[in-house]
Structures are given as structure tokens and as C-alpha cells.
């Protein structure tokens, strides 16, 4: 084990978490108007943000909401650089469907897809699917999510990258030796494979969890690439990072270390910078940052603690994203706190490197060697 330290790479990146029209939007624009979403994504892209996560749930949470994977696909076709990470739940969905939806998002965005894994913890959601599902304990739901992630990842690998050969001499479109049954069998899932969708451009789109309960951290360490933690203050931030690294070491897993981002609630938009007193506790966020200076300071501190980046939680998408573009990012640039390169894929954004295919012959050879440090164990 050599990889218990946080990445020493100097990069520190920013993304944004989009939920409806913002967590404290008092005059919400329509959340089902596609043009509003596109405007926000384009502003985020102009700001140089690396990715946007899109919140979703099957239950009605007070605001009208569209399916995030499809909204993300629509947004991917209308943007060029920004990573798109929809929430897709695992409790009531089929891994086979989830796998091809996210692979397709990766095709539409040519390597910009990610997956924010969530569970459906309520009886209300179980009712929407009509299942006599009584065991909604977090330990059960996250164990199931871990399995779903495993199945989805296997399906992504079920085609080797060069399986399409178009060999006119033998009349074969594919080399079927390069397609693989996944033959996944467990009490929860049985999935034969291969996927109907060829391996996506990133091989493995980026998989993330948001949260820092033991279940989140356990599930993320088991099969994800990224964790969005939500520390309420710096002490908690430090504790989370240490906890993740300790658990990683204790697990002795050969995986590359989890990429940990911190959630940072902001209210920078000029029309809403008025009083924020009182909102802090209400939202359970810890400090909401309302000035460019404080935000830059906080980002510096998080970076020093070993966070790979931050996911901004804007109070009001429209005004806050404009302020991030016009005020925050220019300030961070001046401070050398903004990584300027242009990653080719979302995996590059998170420093993940190319994804080995577990079924490819070369990978099978090295995987049997004890020294492997592949991402996909």
C-alpha cells in the first residue's frame, strides 16, 4: 500500500450542484423549462466549471422535476466542455437500463458523463413502484447500491473498445470474442449481459456518491471514483478526509484513492447578497459563503486539507452562476487557485486516468498479477 496520501497534484477544480433552481430561490423560474437549464449550464461552462451534478428523486419534493439522466442528455447535446453528472437511483431501477442510459450520455457528451449514485429511502417511493419493500435501512440500500454499481460497471466493460471490426472479408461487423457475458448472479440481481450499448467513450464514466455517513463512505470506497462530502466547518472537513484515508488504509484495497470534493454553499449573486443571517442553520449547511474573498479563502483551506476540489451549492442558480463566472473565478485565477487546463474527459477532470477493461485479454493477464493497482478491482 503506497497510496494513503491525498493526491499531490496541484489541481483544484470547481463544479456545481444544481437542484431545481437553487436551494433558496425565492422566485423560482420554471424547473421544467429546458431553456433555463441550458442557460445555467452554459454560464457554468463559460465560468470554466468542470462539471455540474443534477439532483433527482422519484418522490415529489415540492418543485416540479424532470428525469435527470434525460435532462443531462439534452444538456450534453447543447454544451461542449462541462461534465454532466445526473443523479440516478438504484433502489427501484434496473442496472441494465441504468448502464445503457449513462453510457449513452457519455456518447452524447463525448466523454463527459458521470453518475451520482443515490438510493430511494422512503416508503413513498416504494409505493410508486408497488413493491412490498419494507427493508429501507441505509445499510441495505447502500449495499444494494454497491452491487448495482458493480453490475453497471461490468456492463460498461462487456464490450471491448475495439469490438467493432467491420471486416468485409469475413462479413463480420463485430469480433464476438470481444463481447462478454457478465453472468452476474446474486440474491438481488441476475444480469446476463453483454450490454446492448458498446463501451462508452470513457470506458467507465465517473461514479460518485454525495454524503459522508459511514454508508456513503463505505459504498464510495467499494466502487466509486469520487465522493462529494458536505462538511459544515473546517474541523469536520479535516475529520472527513482523515476518516476516508484511514478507512482506505484499513481496507488495504489496491484501488486508487477516492477523489474527495467538499460541498461549499454559496450565495454570491448580487441580487441576493443581502442578509444571510438565519439561513445558515436552516439549511444545515454550515457557513454559507456570501463574498468572493471568503469563498476564495475557504477554497484555499479545503485544498490545503487535501480536497481535490469543491462542488459549489448555489442559493439561486441563475444569479450565483453569473457571479461565479464574473467575480469568483477571475479572483481565483489571480490567486492561482483555479486550474486552467482543459481536461479531455470527465475522468481527466478527476485525475482518474484511462479505465482498464476487466474483460480485455491484456487486463485479465495483469489482473491476475498480485501487484496490480488498477482502478477497477
Amino acid at each position, binding site marked *: 500500500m503506497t497510496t494513503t496520501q491525498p493526491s499531490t497534484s496541484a489541481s483544484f477544480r470547481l463544479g456545481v450542484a444544481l437542484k431545481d433552481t437553487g436551494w433558496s430561490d425565492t422566485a423560482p423560474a420554471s424547473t421544467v423549462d429546458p431553456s433555463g437549464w441550458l442557460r445555467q449550464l452554459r454560464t457554468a461552462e463559460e465560468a470554466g466549471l468542470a462539471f455540474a451534478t443534477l439532483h433527482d428523486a422519484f418522490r415529489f419534493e415540492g418543485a416540479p422535476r424532470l428525469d435527470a439522466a434525460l435532462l443531462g*442528455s439534452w444538456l450534453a447535446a*447543447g454544451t461542449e466542455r462541462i461534465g454532466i453528472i445526473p443523479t440516478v437511483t438504484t433502489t427501484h431501477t434496473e442496472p441494465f437500463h441504468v448502464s445503457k442510459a449513462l453510457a*449513452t450520455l457519455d456518447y452524447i457528451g463525448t466523454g463527459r458523463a458521470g453518475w451520482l449514485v443515490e438510493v430511494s429511502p422512503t416508503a413513498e417511493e416504494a409505493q410508486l413502484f408497488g413493491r412490498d419493500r419494507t427493508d429501507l435501512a441505509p445499510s441495505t440500500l447502500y449495499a444494494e447500491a454497491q452491487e448495482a454499481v458493480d453490475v453497471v460497471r461490468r456492463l460498461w466493460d462487456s464490450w471491448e473498445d475495439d469490438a467493432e471490426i467491420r471486416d468485409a472479408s469475413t462479413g463480420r461487423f463485430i469480433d464476438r470474442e470481444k463481447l462478454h457475458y457478465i453472468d452476474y448472479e446474486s440474491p438481488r440481481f441476475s444480469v446476463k449481459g453483454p450490454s446492448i450499448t458498446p463501451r462508452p467513450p470513457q470506458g467507465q464514466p465517473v461514479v460518485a456518491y454525495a454524503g459522508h455517513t459511514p454508508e456513503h463512505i463505505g459504498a464510495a470506497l467499494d466502487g466509486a471514483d469520487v465522493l462529494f462530502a458536505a462538511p459544515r466547518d473546517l474541523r469536520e472537513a479535516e475529520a472527513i478526509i482523515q476518516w476516508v484515508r484511514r478507512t482506505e488504509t484499513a481496507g488495504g484495497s489496491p484501488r486508487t484513492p477516492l477523489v474527495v470534493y467538499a460541498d461549499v454553499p454559496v450565495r454570491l449573486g448580487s441580487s441576493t447578497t443581502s442578509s444571510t443571517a438565519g439561513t445558515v442553520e436552516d439549511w444545515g449547511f454550515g457557513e454559507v459563503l456570501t463574498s468572493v474573498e471568503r469563498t476564495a479563502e475557504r477554497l484555499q483551506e479545503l485544498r490545503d486539507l487535501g480536497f481535490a476540489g469543491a462542488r459549489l451549492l448555489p442559493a439561486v442558480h441563475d444569479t450565483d452562476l453569473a457571479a461565479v463566472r464574473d467575480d469568483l473565478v477571475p479572483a481565483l485565477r489571480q490567486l492561482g487557485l483555479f486550474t486552467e487546463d482543459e481536461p479531455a474527459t470527465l475522468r481527466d477532470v478527476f485525475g482518474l486516468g484511462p479505465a482498464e477493461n476487466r474483460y480485455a485479454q491484456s487486463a485479465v493477464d495483469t489482473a491476475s498479477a498480485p501487484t496490480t493497482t488498477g482502478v477497477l478491482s
Partner: protein
Amino acid sequence: MTDIPQVILGAHFPGVNHTTVWSDPASGSHIHFDSFARFAQAAERGKFDFLFLAEGLRLREQGGHIHDLDVVGRPDTLPVLAGLAAVTQHLGLAGTINATFNEPTEVARQFATLDHLSAGRAAWNVVTSSDAFTGENFRRGGYLPRDQRYVRAEEFLDAARAQWDSWEAPAGETAGTEPAPFQVSSTQFEISGQVTFPRPPQGHPVIFQAGDSAAGRDFAARNADAVFTRHGTPEAGRAFYADLKSRVAAAGRTPEHVKVLPGATFVVADTDAEAVELADHIRHQQVSGQTALRLLEQVWNRDLSGYDPDGPLPEIEPETGETTIIQGRARHVDDPHEAVAKLRRLAEEHGYSLRETAIASQARQSFIGSPQTVAHQIIDAVATGVSDGFILVPHLTPSGLDPFVDRVVPLLQERGALRTDYPERATLRDLLGLPTPITLKESTA
């Protein structure tokens, strides 16, 4: 001159089928989004009504191996359509989604999302194909006995309708309103709750159906806005058309409200003679020696890999037992002995090799000719009760629609059979001339 009918046109993205030619240098990716965008934009340039995507939830197998001679694999239907909604403005977006291996809450929400993203251009082709082979990809799917597939499909659609109808906010103003609780109780579903989405712009997406059995046709008569059928030749088309429209009337609906749309292929060239020659060339591209063997295996229902495609037909008799050599798609051979005898007569009469016989046994392209000939044939078919229009299936991706759009469409427009521009802000229901959707309130009243 009689009234020129309006021709409905759909554009089927060329797919997983031997009619799609991948060996041609002009054949591009069947997976990359650019291909879909380019194809959709051609259809929109041609003022088509909609683009159509098929779906299959398990890769096809023949003789226990993944079939490797045709295009294999496709991206996921609904994300592709959502992406296309961003790069088109008027074109309807129709997706095939299975009612057996999905859940109504998820599918209702996905089509509502697509309808919102596209400002009312979504259509759902409800299919029921279901077997244990496909079910192996799903944890909860399993599969259904034949006689229950349409029961589930109909209850599935009712469950989706209950959800689409549950949050009707005036003029999209949802502020201060809430989705009404819905409840569905049927043999297949026991579900309740609140949706997250306001009623889709079209009310409900346009509903397509594509099954051919009596149960399938009755399901369509009760529920569908359009039927995608194989019966496109004049005789078979008229028979199907009359049968379906009478079922619609028997179901208490207006026959004009269910559009009959056969799949159709086309070859366009400068002259009729050149088109015939090109059509023959394409048929040879579609059926290589290996593909010929696979096609005949479907008739013989046994392994023919040892035979020479350039030699004579196999002398052995077909296997008539239950085991079928192909999986993941329907088999269309009723009487194998009769089918084999027919092939032998064909080969003998023309002195055909195995491959030539396979090619000759395949249906010819539906429309072959100069632009004038093809335009005339299409208008004539619609004017004489063969169909209400066609879903065109080109053999090339992504450029296959271009000859039709560039050369036939202007003639259809000139003769008044096709719009010259899209109406402002039209939904797909508007384009197809469909009434407001069937709501449960109406149908149970």
C-alpha cells in the same frame, strides 16, 4: 384530379438488421451521437413528421453465438431522443420502449421529460416482445406468458396515463399547485403516490404500437394513435388497413384517429432502370454469403455453416421441432417444409446459388424508381387505402435519407402531399392531426 392526401412520413434510424449495410464506405457509426443528429436533421430538412428508434434489450444470437454479421449494438433510446430534442426543432421523436421489462412510474416520467424537453414532440412505441432470453438481463423482469403480454401492456399504459393526467397546471404555472395523488390497482400493478412532473405539453406522448397478432391489433385499436406495421405492399397493406380501422371503429374510436404506417424501404436514382440496378446492388450488399447462410438457417432451423454460399441449396430437410436457432428476435416461418420447397423451386427456375436464392427470397425494396416514380407510388398508396403514410428505413447511416429528402420530398411538396414548412409551435399530435389524448376519465366514463 382527386384530392391529394397528406402523407405521413417517419424516418427509421437504420439499425440492427441485415437490411442495414455497414460495409459501404459511406456507412458511418451507428452509435455516435453525430450520426443520429445528422440523420434527424435530414428528416427535419425533409419536413418529416417524426424520427423513429427501434429497441432490443438483448443482443441477438444465432446457434448460441452473438450474431456478428449485422450491425450489433445501439445506444439507449430515450437519452438519444433527449439529445436529439436539443438539435432539432419540429421533428417528432418516437422511441420503442418495452412494457414487460420496465415499470410505469419510470417510463411515464421519462416520456413526460422527453415531451417537456422537446416542447411536445415525444412518441412511445409500446412493444411487448418478451421471452426468457431477454429476461435474463433483468432482475425483476422475468417474462410473461404470451397471453399476458398485452394485459400488462394495457395496464402499464393506463398506469402511465394516470400519472400524465395527475398534475394539470394551468398554462404550465405550477407555482402554488401540487400533483394530485394517483392510485392504480390492476392485475399487474398496485401503485400510488405523486408524480414530480407537470402534465406533458401533448397531454400524453403519441402512442405507437407494432405487434401483429389479433391481441396486438385490438390493443392498438383501443390505445394507439399510430401503428407501425410490416404490411406495406398494396394487397397486404390494404387488408391490414381495413382490418385495423374496423377494429378501431369496433372499439368505439374514430378510424382516422389511428394512423397506419408500414415500414418501407426505397431506392431512388435518375431513371427507373438505374434504380432497379442500384436496388439489386444494394440487395447484394445486404446479403453477403455468410448472411445468406444465416438467413437460410432461420428457415431450416438448423446449423448450415458447413455449406458453400456459392454452391447449391442444402439437400437436407428443415428441423421442425420446437427449438429455434435464433434468439432475440421473432421468427417468421410458419411451415418450414413449404418454405424450403419454395426456395428450391426458386433456385431451380433461375439456376441460383444458395446466396442468390437467399437474396431473391428477401422482399424487394418497397419503392424503387426515379424521384417521380417513387413520389407517385407513395401518394398512390396513401390515396388507395394502403396506409396513412410510411416509416422509411434507409440502408445507410447516417446519409441514407438524403436521396429521398433531396429528390422525392420536393415532388411530394409540389403535389401538395407534404407540408412545405412546419406550422409554428406544432406538437407531434398537431403534425399528425391527432385529437387530444385518451384520458382515463373519458375511457371509464
